[in-house]
């Protein structure tokens, strides 16, 4: 390793200047940037805003449910609150959150590439997100929206609220999502560095690749569905309207053909993050790498075959219902395989309870519950009773909020030092995780009980017998909200007084840690060294940079011995 000829501090240290945050200045340099890292940061800010907005509606509706009868919202206002909560969270937060922010930032750096394949497309994808979200806000302000995020016909045709603006917003957000997915597939396919074959790719990339497959294949169907719904509202197309001989259940088929796979657009990036975080903070290669990698692809492909389980009570044909139930169970297997492989990764590892690791452990717990409760809903006879009750609400919150959002937090805390070069307060980070964990369980465990006891979802008023469970849930939601706010405070404070970190504070092994923190504006000043995958013996602690540096084996040209050819920019 004596071949290192360049200063490790310049290569792997903290980057005071010359990093992507500072190399150009001014609002315009951000607004028109083609740099995937800046786009990632803009996404991060954007989805935080939508998350807070969606969360605000969640707290409003949970507060209303503190008592069985009217507290401060009329039925109509309550319906708008849950619809906007759902629509904003699904379309403007969860789907773009991880691919848009962390994916954009990390994916090309992990590949040792300078950017994603289509930087302009990437920026346009961000602006489509902005425009789409804007239309959701237009719907919120001008006329509201009360259909539920599923826009079921014929109610959505009949309601006087602003379904057109909202569906148009979701339509545009769909294109944003498609373009991100397309970009990632191409980037991973054609821009891997020499030496990184498919099965030497970090699992994050496998997860993002699977996600992108779904985005590209499923989202267009949402596009056409929403376009048909808009035409239905504007022109009276009649395809989904029984008043003109149309079939409202056909709309459900259309909608769920996208929206069930969309659930995996939400969870797969979360799983991708967890694979990285657990491996890095256990300092051990992910157990059963091939199985974890291929299970992502399996989930992506199987996710297209199960949409019918959202319609088990719609009077579906017996053949379809049995097929869909069987296929639904098949998705459970790859998910279970992942969970057990993550556990086995910790076995004989060197576990450090950093904040991201705490979130990852919370993920395992919550995803365990979320995944297992899915079995009740895939089983036909129990689903009939549980369908459209709070049991379902609790189940998908465990998967979306408890798993995806918690994984998102894990990812943000994991890559935060890389993104901004500062370390947050670890103790406060762990406390955040604890509050989120406790609040979340308090909010949603009671909902399982309510649900199986027969509490239907989307109810502004309810029978007194459910009151105690609703109250527990409301208190939990408030605790959860506090935890999330605390997390944001912890992170934002670190920007001002956080300790400066080196390029690799965790001792991680993937390529994004082989550059400075924050990264150079072209990601790497020199081509990174593609060593063994998850080889934690391939890094060593270097006092001079107060962080880890890669061990370049003898015989390999050291970084910096030949500068990367920079084409004119």
């Amino acid at each position: 390793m004596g071949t290192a000829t360049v200063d490790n501090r310049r290569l792997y240290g903290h980057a005071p200047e010359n990093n992507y945050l500072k190399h150009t200045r001014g609002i315009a340099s951000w607004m028109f940037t083609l740099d995937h890292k800046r786009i990632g940061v803009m996404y991060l800010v954007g989805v935080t805003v939508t998350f807070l907005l969606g969360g605000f509606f969640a707290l409003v509706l949970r507060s209303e449910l503190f008592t069985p009868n009217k507290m401060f919202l009329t039925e109509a206002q309550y319906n708008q609150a849950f619809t906007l909560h759902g629509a904003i969270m699904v379309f403007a937060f969860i789907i773009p959150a991880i691919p848009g922010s962390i994916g954009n930032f990390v994916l090309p750096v992990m590949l040792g590439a300078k950017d994603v394949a289509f930087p302009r497309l990437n920026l346009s994808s961000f602006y489509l997100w902005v425009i789409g979200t804007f239309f959701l806000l237009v719907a919120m302000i001008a006329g509201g929206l009360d259909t539920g995020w599923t826009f079921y016909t014929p109610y959505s045709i009949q309601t006087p609220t602003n379904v057109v603006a909202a569906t148009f917003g979701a339509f545009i957000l769909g294109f944003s999502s498609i373009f991100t997915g397309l970009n990632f597939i191409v980037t991973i396919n054609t821009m891997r560095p020499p030496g990184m074959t498919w099965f030497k790719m970090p699992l994050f990339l496998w997860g993002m690749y699977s996600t992108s497959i779904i985005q590209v294949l499923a989202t267009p169907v949402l596009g056409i569905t929403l376009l048909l719904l808009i035409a239905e509202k504007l022109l009276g197309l009649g395809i989904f309207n029984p008043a003109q001989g149309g079939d409202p259940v056909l709309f459900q088929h259309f909608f769920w053909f996208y929206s069930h796979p969309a659930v995996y657009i939400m969870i797969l990036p979360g799983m991708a993050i967890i694979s990285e975080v657990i491996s890095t903070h256990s300092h051990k290669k992910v157990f059963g790498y091939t199985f974890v990698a291929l299970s992502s692809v399996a989930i992506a492909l199987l996710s297209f075959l199960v949409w019918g389980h959202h319609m088990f009570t719609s009077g579906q044909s017996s053949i379809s219902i049995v097929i869909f139930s069987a296929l639904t169970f098949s998705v459970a297997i790859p998910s279970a395989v992942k969970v057990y492989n993550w556990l086995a990764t910790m076995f004989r590892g060197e576990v450090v309870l950093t904040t991201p690791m705490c979130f990852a452990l919370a993920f395992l717990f919550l995803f365990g519950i979320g995944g297992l409760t899915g079995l009740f809903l895939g089983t036909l006879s129990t689903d009939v009773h549980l369908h459209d009750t709070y049991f379902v609400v609790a189940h998908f919150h465990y998967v979306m909020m408890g798993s995806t959002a918690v994984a998102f937090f894990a990812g943000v805390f994991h890559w935060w030092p890389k993104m901004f070069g500062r370390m947050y307060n670890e103790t406060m980070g762990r406390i955040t995780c604890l509050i989120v964990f406790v609040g979340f369980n308090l909010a949603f465990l009671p909902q399982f009980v309510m649900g199986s006891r027969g509490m239907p979802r989307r109810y502004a008023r309810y029978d007194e017998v459910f009151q105690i469970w609703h109250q527990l849930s409301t208190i939990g939601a408030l605790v959860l909200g506090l935890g999330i706010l605390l997390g944001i405070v912890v992170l934002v404070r670190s920007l001002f007084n956080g300790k400066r970190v080196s390029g690799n504070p965790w001792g991680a092994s993937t390529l994004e840690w082989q550059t400075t923190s924050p990264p150079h504006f072209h990601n790497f000043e020199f081509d990174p060294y593609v060593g063994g995958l998850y080889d934690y013996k391939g890094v060593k602690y270097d006092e001079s940079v107060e962080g880890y540096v890669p061990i370049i084996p003898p015989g390999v040209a050291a970084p910096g011995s030949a500068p990367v050819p920079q084409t004119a920019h």
Partner: protein
Amino acid sequence: MAHDSHQQVSAEGTPLPSFNHPISVTTLLATFAALVMFTIVTVVVAKSLPMGRFEIWVSLGIATVKALLVMLFFMHMLHDKPFNVLIFISGFVFAALFMGLTLSDSEHYQDDIRAAPSFEGAQTTPILARGAEE
């Protein structure tokens, strides 16, 4: 990519980059001729041969032959990477899944629709028609 940028490349004889496969004019014209022929055939068949319920399958079969011609020759699938071809084909596979599973359900509940009296609920006026009615 190795070849000289200032060398004027003519239509014949000059080395082209490995990803550059021009299709011959003969092939293009032959493909077009076949496509026109199939279009005429499908119209004639549909309009003059009484085939009942097989007609749609014949029409779709001819359309598929035409689609294959376009894909193989006009879209250069013959020279494209297998992965790109796979990607494109997978689009049709998923569309077929979508159609098949939806149809398998809707086929069943048509009886319930036929048995029920015609829907008598309120007809919602489309937004673009509202101004005219008030």
